[in-house]
Every structure is written in C-alpha cells, then in structure tokens.
C-alpha cells in the first residue's frame, strides 16, 4: 500500500500531468543551429575573426550569468543549461566588426547580461532586448571601432586564424586602418550627403548586386536559418513577416517618391542587419509583443522605424534603435491588442 500519512502541500500538483516535448533548452539549441549558416557566411566573407569574438563572448556570457544568478541567490545550473545566454552572446558578436579589439565583445556582452538582462530581473523580465542594449552601448561609446567594417571578400577573408587573433588582441583601436572602411549603409548615407544621386553610386565598389557587397550573402544565410526556425515552429510567421513588410513597405514608398534619393526595397532588406533582425532579434520572445495582433503591430513598427532611422537618422543602421523603441511600447501594444475572449462576441452569428 502506498499511503501518505500527511498531506504535504508541495505534493499537490495541478493538472495537466503531461507536457509537450519542447523546452527552453531545445528552443535555444534550434536558434543556435539556425545562426550557423550566417556565421559560416561571415567567416567566408570576413575571415575567422568572428570566431575569436564568439569565443570571448560566450565565455563572458556564461561567466557573468553564473555570477549574476549567484548574487541573487538563485541556482545558476538550470539557467546555464538552457543556453539562452549563448544566443545573446552570438547576436552581439554578429553585430560587432570582426576585427574589433577583444574587449569590445567582452564589454558588449557584459553590459547586455548585467544591465540589459539582470538589472531588469533576469530571464523573462527584461524590458529591452539585451543583445540590442549591449550593441547600442558599444555603438554609443565606441562609434569609431563599431563603424570599421572590413570590405567583404577582400584581404580580410584570406587572413588566417592566428593573424586574426593577433589583430584582435594586440592592435590599437585604429590599427586596422586602410584595410577597413564603412559599410554599404554608411557609404550610401555619406555619399548622399555629398549630393550624389543613387544612380551614380551603382558602380561603387562597396555595393553589391542589390545590397551591400557580401552582405547580401550573409543575409541570405540568415534567411535560410530563419526558414529553418519557421519550419521547426520555433518562430511563428507574424513577427518576421510584419517586420519585413514594414521595412519593405517604407522602403518602397521612399523609392517611389524619389528613386534618386532613396534606395529601394531589396537594398534595404538585404543590407545591414535586415534579415538577422527579422528572424533572430525582432522574434526575441521576452521583449516583443505576445498577442497575435500585437506581434503584427510590433514587427511592422520595428520595420518602419528601422527604415526611418536608416534614411533620416544619423546612424547608418537603425535596427537596434528601432527594436529597442518598440520594446518600450510592447507592454502597451499587448494591452491594446487583447484578443477577443470566448463568449464575448458582439454580433450574433446565428
């Protein structure tokens, strides 16, 4: 006989007594897997520098997460196991120029984990996307380093691992002069201020077929990863699609209004962090809207904001700022887009 003499409250478990197979760990594994093609494209185009930064970022993230949880008196084991902090590290690394000094990724991740995530209450409680918070911190504090991207596919890609390491660990912040320059978005922006028309820029070396040279391929790799996530049901279509629609629509309107001043749809989608944002950043569950309609509003708003900042703001890429601004609106969006409740319909369907 199996009888319990007394009833312990902690034994009382509510139904349901079974659960689905997905857990946070599985979700984060899928996201990391989906980031792989993008990282490979990075390595091919910019050389292995990013791998070193990934290593630094991952170590920093795990270490600080552990520390931050211990400070709060929480067992860090389950949190470290679920891998959410590794995704955070990857996303920041992908936004950092591959030959930036080593402390850039360290600082970015540290800020993201400690301030972006734990200062707000840890996993699930952060108001802003921690990866974007870390990136914005770097962008504001070290604008020069963060703006120096190597030209894709030139000498950077042929650089070896040891060479890259020495560059990352030893060089002074501006020691990579000559081998690096602005990104395509940067270029278009500076040239536009010099009153050059878009049609005149077509032949510019830095621009590729449609987007920035090289960036098109990276973005396509992210698209492939995003497709995988959609297929596995990790990401639902609403957020990425509405983001791309917002960005695309705004870009098309700009292009139609004046093709000589504004770049078109494909340029905006395939340049900078366009598709990375659509599938990996906008879709961050913690800081985005969660109601079905709210997701559409959130994604669309982030897309439009991105375009506006790219075209009219003073920063070349607006993804981070756009998403952080929308994060701030997410609770409001959620509240205003509550779905209709069963049994509360207004019209009679009889």
């Amino acid at each position, binding site marked *: 006989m199996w009888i319990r003499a007394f009833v312990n409250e*902690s034994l009382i478990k509510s139904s349901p007594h079974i659960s689905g197979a997905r857990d946070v760990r599985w979700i984060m594994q899928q996201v990391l897997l989906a980031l792989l093609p993008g990282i490979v494209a990075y390595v091919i185009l910019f050389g292995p520098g990013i791998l070193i930064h990934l290593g630094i970022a991952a170590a920093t993230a795990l270490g600080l997460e552990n520390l931050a949880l211990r400070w709060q008196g*929480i067992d860090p084991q389950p949190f470290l196991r679920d891998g959410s902090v590794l995704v955070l590290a990857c996303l920041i690394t992908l936004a950092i120029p591959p030959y930036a000094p080593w402390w850039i990724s360290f600082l970015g991740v540290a800020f993201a984990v400690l301030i972006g995530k734990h200062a707000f209450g840890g996993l*699930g409680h952060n108001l802003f996307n921690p990866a974007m918070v870390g990136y914005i911190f770097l962008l504001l504090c070290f604008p020069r380093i963060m703006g120096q991207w190597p030209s894709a596919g030139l000498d950077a890609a042929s650089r070896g691992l040891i060479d890259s390491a020495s560059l990352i660990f030893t060089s002074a912040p501006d020691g990579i002069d000559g081998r690096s320059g602005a990104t395509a978005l940067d270029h278009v922006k500076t040239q536009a201020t010099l009153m050059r028309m878009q049609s005149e820029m077509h032949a510019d070396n830095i621009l590729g077929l449609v987007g920035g040279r090289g960036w098109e391929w990276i973005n396509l790799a992210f698209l492939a990863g995003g497709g995988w996530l959609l297929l596995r049901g990790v990401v639902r279509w609403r957020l990425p699609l509405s983001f791309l629609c917002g960005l695309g629509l705004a870009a098309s309107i700009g292009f139609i209004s004046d093709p000589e001043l504004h770049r078109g749809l494909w340029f905006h989608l395939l340049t900078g962090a366009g598709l990375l944002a659509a599938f990996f950043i906008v879709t961050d569950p913690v800081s985005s809207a969660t109601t079905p309609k709210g997701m559409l509003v959130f994604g669309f708003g982030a897309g439009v904001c991105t375009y506006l900042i790219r075209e009219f703001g003073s920063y070349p890429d607006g993804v981070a700022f756009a998403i952080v601004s929308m994060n701030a609106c997410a609770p409001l969006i959620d509240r205003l887009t509550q779905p209709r409740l069963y049994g509360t319909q207004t019209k009679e369907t009889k």
Partner: protein
Amino acid sequence: MIEAIAALVGLLVIGAWLLLHHREPERDSRSRIVRRIDEILPQTQCQQCGYGGCLPYAQAILSGNAPIDQCPPGGPVVKRSLAELLGQSNIARLRLSDSEAVDQIVVIDESTCIGCTKCIQACPVDAIVGATKQMHTVIADHCTGCELCIPPCPVDCIDIVRLEPGLERWRWSMPTHLGSERRNHPRI
C-alpha cells in the same frame, strides 16, 4: 528653428497633459478613510487589538496611534490590504499565500450552560441565541471566534473549536519549486 521650437513645445504640452490627466485622485476625507479601513478589518469586534472594536481601531490607525499589524483574526491579508491603502509599502510585500489567520468559532456545552445570558450580552455580533434560564447556543455561521464571550461565562461552558481545513474550506496554494523565485524573498 521655428519648427524645432514648435515640436518641443508640442511635446511639452502633450507630456504635461498626460501627467496631469493621470494625476492621483483627490485625497479622501478622514471619515472616508476610516470607513475604508473599517471595511478591510474582519469585523470580529474581538478587541484583541486593544481598542473597543473594529471601528475604534480603524480610527486609531488613522490618527497614527496604532500600528496596522494588531489584528490577529485578520492576519496577513488584512495587514496587506491596510498597507496598500495606507501606503506602508514595506508591509505590502506580503503575499496571499501567507494567510495564516486562525479560523475558529466557539461552541456552548449545552449540558453545562445555566442560561445566564452573560455571553449573549458579551457577543458583539449577536451570534448567540437563548433566553434567561434557557440553554444558549452559538450560531456557527455568525460566530467570528473573537473569544469575548468566554470570560463572562460563570460555568466555563464555552469552548473554542478550531475549524479544520475540510474539503469545502481547502484552497489551492501557490505552486512550489520554482527555480526563478528569489529564495530570500523579503517576508514580514
């Protein structure tokens, strides 16, 4: 230049409107606050707080003479509600699950009762019925367990009965084993 100034002024106006529009409502008058405190108190009229009943205690709380944690029957729930009402936020962090209010009522041992009516006079909520030289009894649903009837009884025939948590009174409690809960959560 003018556009910039206009935009800033516009923002200011909107911000000010938002702030002022959602201002805290007018402060309640004293009597209204006393009434609201009284509404929170459990109305056992047991005087365990040291005041003559729930209403006198409410008045004492508002005048600042009485702390808000002097109500044993109310337990943490009442304490929390009072703290919320009066803005004593350090106490407001109590949770519903901390409710430990003792549920008890009294019963009269009817074979011992001599029918003196003293307990009937003592009962603040008219929960005892009976007449002189007649056996008395407690209406269980009305009894608040305040114990005020026990001292006057000359023959000690009133017993306190703890209400056991039967199926009808059982409540779901907060789930346990949550990794994300802070272990050292501040408690009162």
